[in-house]
């Protein structure tokens, strides 16, 4: 699943560490999400989207191969 977390985080001028602290997860988890190695749970995805003031589907994009 693709996502725009890296771009949204950069636009806010946040480090992975700072975003992780704001969302209550580790820096490595933010990195894994940004690289597409880890798909967050629905609660975490919603928290991330709300943090950036977006809808979940505006932050996370389902690829055809994800279906």
């Amino acid at each position, binding site marked *: 699943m693709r996502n725009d977390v890296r771009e949204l985080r950069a636009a806010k001028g946040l480090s992975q560490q700072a975003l992780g602290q704001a969302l*209550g*997860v*580790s820096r*490595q*988890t933010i990195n*894994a999400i940004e690289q597409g190695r*880890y798909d*967050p*749970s629905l*609660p*975490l995805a*919603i*928290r991330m989207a709300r943090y950036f003031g977006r809808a979940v589907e505006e932050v996370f994009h389902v690829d055809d191969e994800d279906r």
Partner: protein
Amino acid sequence: MSTTRTGETGSRRRWLIPGLCVAFAAAYAAVFLAHGRPLAATIGAAVMLAYAAVLVVFSRRSEAVALLREDGRDERRAMITGRASATTLSVLVVLSLAMVFVQLVRGVEPGPWGVFCGVGGLTFIVAIVYHSRRY
């Protein structure tokens, strides 16, 4: 809707594994000393204390060490720990089954290996039933 464990509980948990290592170090030393083996007592305690020191010193630099220490678990770290536990258990089950067959081929009772397989199989069945009803 929290997906992480934070605050006082998380802080206490961070020291649980290092604390257990220190307790095991003391237990190893006491048991070996009670059997008159001071060298084994020293080595056993030193290994456990060194492991505890590695967990405390390197858990901020290495995520793998942080996971071994259960430091600041979030949902991804919980998943990693769960998968690592499942992998470990799979290896132990395969080893135990192999040892049961080896014992049977040798014509002796499976002993602790049989108990381990029995308890493991029963636990798996109960866990499947419990979790299938819970989720």
